[in-house]
């Protein structure tokens, strides 16, 4: 269902203001979404004044600086810090991206950091991605082969067939694309969303997979697939530069021509 406004318990309130204590002249105001499950309060946006003379170049560096030096209760996911794991996906300056590869020098004025949009918030910048993972499981993201008795032999793939997976196998499932998609916001329980559909296409397109027809049939659904209206927020947000909109378009085309 389309609900444009936030529910009552999600309305954002003005939070605390942490003034700079280092007397730095190079300050940046960082607005961060906060919600603490142990209190019964609404979410709020805290503002931190951060000394940029002693801070790394990335948004993740800022978050770490806040956590280490100003407010240790700030909670966010992160792991590799090199744009490989996809843990620190969040909404930075209005667009979903990875905090570890987004340079704060690109952002003029105040820096706004929110969790990925339209998710149940677990704490602060952490959104609940359970639904997305379930949908990912539903497309069976593993190789399907017929039982031939030769399972121990390797399945070979030509270089040309392998190249067909370029632009799709690189997906790290950070969920930036799916949570940027208005269609996924309104129909996230039924529509698979760009991330999962890109993965579906990756398996449909794999020459070694023996279940192409079945995979296509399963995804050919008014709600699962055709809620994509080519809004292209997904491609605009992908931190790895992939094109989920094109993957979905390719599935639609395959279905129309098969």
């Amino acid at each position, binding site marked *: 269902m389309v609900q444009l406004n936030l529910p009552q318990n999600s309305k954002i309130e003005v939070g605390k203001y942490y003034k700079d204590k280092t007397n730095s002249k190079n300050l940046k105001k960082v607005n961060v979404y906060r919600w603490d499950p142990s209190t019964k309060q609404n979410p709020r946006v805290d503002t931190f004044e951060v000394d940029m003379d002693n801070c790394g170049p990335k948004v993740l560096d800022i978050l770490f600086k806040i956590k280490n030096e100003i407010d240790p209760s700030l909670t966010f996911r992160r792991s590799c810090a090199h744009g490989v794991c996809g843990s620190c996906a969040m909404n930075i300056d209005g667009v979903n991206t990875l905090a570890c590869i987004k340079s704060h020098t690109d952002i003029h004025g105040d820096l706004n950091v929110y969790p990925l*949009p339209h998710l149940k918030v677990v704490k602060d910048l952490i959104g609940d991605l*359970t639904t997305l993972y379930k949908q990912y499981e539903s497309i069976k993201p593993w190789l399907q082969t017929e039982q031939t008795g030769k399972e121990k032999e390797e399945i070979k793939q030509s270089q040309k067939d392998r190249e067909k997976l370029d632009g799709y196998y690189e997906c790290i499932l950070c969920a930036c694309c799916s949570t940027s998609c208005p269609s996924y916001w309104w129909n996230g329980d039924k529509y698979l969303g760009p991330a999962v559909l890109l993965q579906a296409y990756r398996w449909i397109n794999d020459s070694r997979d023996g279940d192409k027809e079945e995979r296509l049939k399963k995804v050919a659904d008014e709600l699962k697939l055709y809620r994509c209206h080519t809004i292209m927020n997904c491609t605009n947000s992908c931190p790895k530069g992939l094109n989920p909109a094109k993957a979905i378009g390719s599935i639609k085309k395959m279905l129309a021509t098969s």
Partner: protein
Amino acid sequence: MEEKNNPLSPHLQIYRWQISSLLSITHRIVGVVNILAITIICFWSLSLLLGAESYLIINNFLQSFFGKFVAVGLCWTFSFHILNELRHLFWDLGYGFDLKISKITGVLALLGSFVFTILFYLIGKNIF
């Protein structure tokens, strides 16, 4: 998640508009406007059958400032919808998904819709 009281993270409120998303929602709104417009145009043309009196009413309306605004506005909504629908047609054929290309075609569709509107207006004014 066990707890039902968890808030929903903000979405429309904070997400930055992209050219692509802006054109997409405009395409939808314009589509609805066009359906209404076609219906009204049908009623208007039917009412012309009733003779000079109803012709006068419609003529008076279209001569007023608001009437002109509606007429020119509809020229734009139709132009935009047709041009943007062309983009969808090419997407369905598998072309134009590249981020740069889709941005360029989007801007072209928007600019083109204004050019078409001006052309319609000039043709309507019998300038050519």
